[in-house]
């Protein structure tokens, strides 16, 4: 008996390793800090988007690295190497399609996450900084989409970038410099590809990692906002730690998103158009779907001409982003219930409806171009 009791108290090899690391880096304290975050009102499905975004980013990094083993970022070989990935590399078509649909999922989840924070009133004091860093992260995600779009070097990539850079050119003061810097010449070519590649695989990921860390730090510092409804008794009874229920919900959310991206990769695997040339031929240039609403807006008569283009492409989106940045400082009412904030609710519906109408209009517009 004595022997068995003495052996049962002996730490296992794994426990010894954990204890060794814990003594040096404070693993258990870190684990407690990570998992024992109180979630006011308990775990909710509405809170999963932040974790899902982190998961998508990690998957994008993994698939992106695997693609880089085969992709050649030169104007001569970018198209051929992408075709090689699709047609010759084992599972290459799936990796590329996953990466492509992952970027779309990231944009969708960023929209969902921002909408949730806005509707929940979670941008209000003391969470203003979290909101601001979140907006910067939104810009980075859009940047990822824009720079990654050029890399396959087909007609779609070439002309979407040309249109995008032309829009950027209309920004006052820095626009000309930005456009020249990105293009690296009069027309998109090797320099453009190199610069977009470096921005896509080096600058943006590094910036995103830094800002995402800051975002998480600020979030943990301020704590979760919790639901905007419910009695004090309800919230108290339901308040829970981050682990296990919220972790479980996050995992289910991640698995669902993973499965959905895989299903999309099967449904619409990436198919390239012809190799990029400075002659568009029959191809009608258009950007990726999440920029379509802006593209269609610029087709309106009101945004015709030099000034109109500046107004539609730069001034209005810029003003909207500036408004979003200033929102926590303008809206100082502590009320978070969206049903008691009619202006916010109507504003959100109008913005979403506008994006939807212009996106669908752009798709209908294709018939007129053909």
């Amino acid at each position, binding site marked *: 008996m004595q022997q068995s009791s003495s052996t049962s108290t002996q730490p296992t090899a794994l426990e010894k390793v954990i204890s060794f690391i814990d003594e040096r880096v404070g693993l258990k304290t870190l684990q407690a800090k990570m998992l024992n975050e109180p979630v006011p009102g308990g775990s909710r499905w509405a809170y999963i988007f932040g974790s899902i975004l982190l998961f998508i980013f990690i998957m994008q990094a993994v698939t992106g690295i695997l693609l880089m083993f085969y992709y050649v970022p030169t104007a001569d070989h970018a198209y051929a190497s992408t075709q090689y990935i699709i047609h010759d590399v084992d599972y*290459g078509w799936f990796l590329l399609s996953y990466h492509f649909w992952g970027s779309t999922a990231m944009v969708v989840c960023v929209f969902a996450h921002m909408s949730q924070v806005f509707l929940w009133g979670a941008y209000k004091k003391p969470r203003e900084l979290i909101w601001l860093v979140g907006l910067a992260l939104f810009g980075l995600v859009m940047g990822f989409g824009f720079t990654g779009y050029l890399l396959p070097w087909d007609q779609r990539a070439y002309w979407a970038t040309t249109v995008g850079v032309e829009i950027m050119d209309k920004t006052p003061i820095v626009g000309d410099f930005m456009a020249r810097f990105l293009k690296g010449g009069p027309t998109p070519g090797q320099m453009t590809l190199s610069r977009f590649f470096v921005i896509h695989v080096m600058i943006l990921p590094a910036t995103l990692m830094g800002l995402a860390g800051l975002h998480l730090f600020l979030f943990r510092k301020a704590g979760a906002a919790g639901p905007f409804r419910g009695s004090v*008794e309800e919230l108290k009874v339901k308040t829970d730690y981050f682990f296990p229920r919220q972790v479980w919900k996050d995992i289910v959310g991640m698995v669902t998103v993973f*499965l959905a991206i*895989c299903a999309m990769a*099967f*449904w619409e695997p990436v198919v390239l158009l012809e190799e990029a040339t400075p002659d568009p031929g029959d191809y009608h240039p258009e950007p990726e779907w999440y920029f379509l609403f802006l593209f269609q807006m610029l087709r309106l008569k009101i945004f015709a001409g030099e000034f109109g283009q500046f107004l539609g492409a730069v001034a209005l989106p810029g003003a909207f982003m500036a408004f979003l940045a200033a929102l926590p400082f303008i809206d100082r009412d502590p009320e978070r219930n969206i049903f008691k904030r009619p202006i916010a609710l109507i504003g959100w519906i109008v913005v979403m409806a506008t994006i939807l109408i212009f996106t669908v*209009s752009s798709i209908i*517009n294709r018939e007129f171009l053909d």
Partner: protein
Amino acid sequence: MPAGYDGMTEQEALSPVKLALQLLWFTFWTGFPIKLAFALLFLAMGLINFEARIGLAFLMILASPVTVFALPILMIGLDSHIGEGVGIGLLFLLCIPIDIWAYGVVAKTYFLDRLRLEPPEGIGLSLWMKTAVVGALYLPILWLVVGFTTETAISFAHSLFEIDFLKGVPVAERIGAQLVLWGTIATVVLLVMLLVGLWLIGRVIQNAMKRAQPVSGSYQGRVMRWDLMRVPADQGLMLTAFAGTGIVLSILFWSALPATTPRPHDCCKKPEVKTQPPYKAIDALNKDEKVIVQLTAQLEALEKKKAEEETQGKSKRKGNAGKEPAKAPSASAPIQSESKKP
């Protein structure tokens, strides 16, 4: 009114629409990831080939229980099909038990937490059956009404812009205005029809509520009860089962995943390579020997024939030598004569 339903203001305050919306929304999300995992597995195995309206079809299969019977009815009614492959039927059959389970878990939670009622036995199955029947009857009507309204609204919006003073409207503005016009009409009709459908399902749920008894115990106790329904006491076992299922599904997925693209580009279509039968050296030698024997026999026969012809020709020439004068040989003559030889 039964005791459980009588005098409960909270339940009475819940409209059938809100009740149905909440239960169906949570049921959809509870069952969706599991169905999606199977759908993906079937896609990887090549058991499903979706065709037109894939997004809608995919969602309708996965969004059951309301659409579980409505989808096949609609497909038969419209004389259309969403795709091919045994996976579609298999997925359809798999969705049924998943939905019954999901509906049961959600309804039990909702009854305990929000309605403060004891969930009746077999609530998942009974609600699923009734909801599926309502969906099967109502969704085709909704489809027809919304489809007809949308088509009418589109043609109205187009005809409106044929009027003289609107003909000059630029294309982008015209598209936007037309979309807002027919989109608003179609959305309003769709929303009204959806509300009616939700109201019908809400009435079904309210009937189940009437049979339920009020639950006893504190609020915290009720929260504990429904919480344990979702997360079993033996969490280690649950996690092991979850991880094990995930590993098995992942292995199946990777083993079934096509290595090369299922949709090759025109530029890169690989030529079909026919597999050569395995080379059998002895058989080949025997075959060659037979051929050599045959050819040798043919050659001998030909030589024999040639020799006979030559002897016949010599005897003829000897017989004719005294009758015809000898001709001078021309350049073409020997060739012609040679070429006529076998």
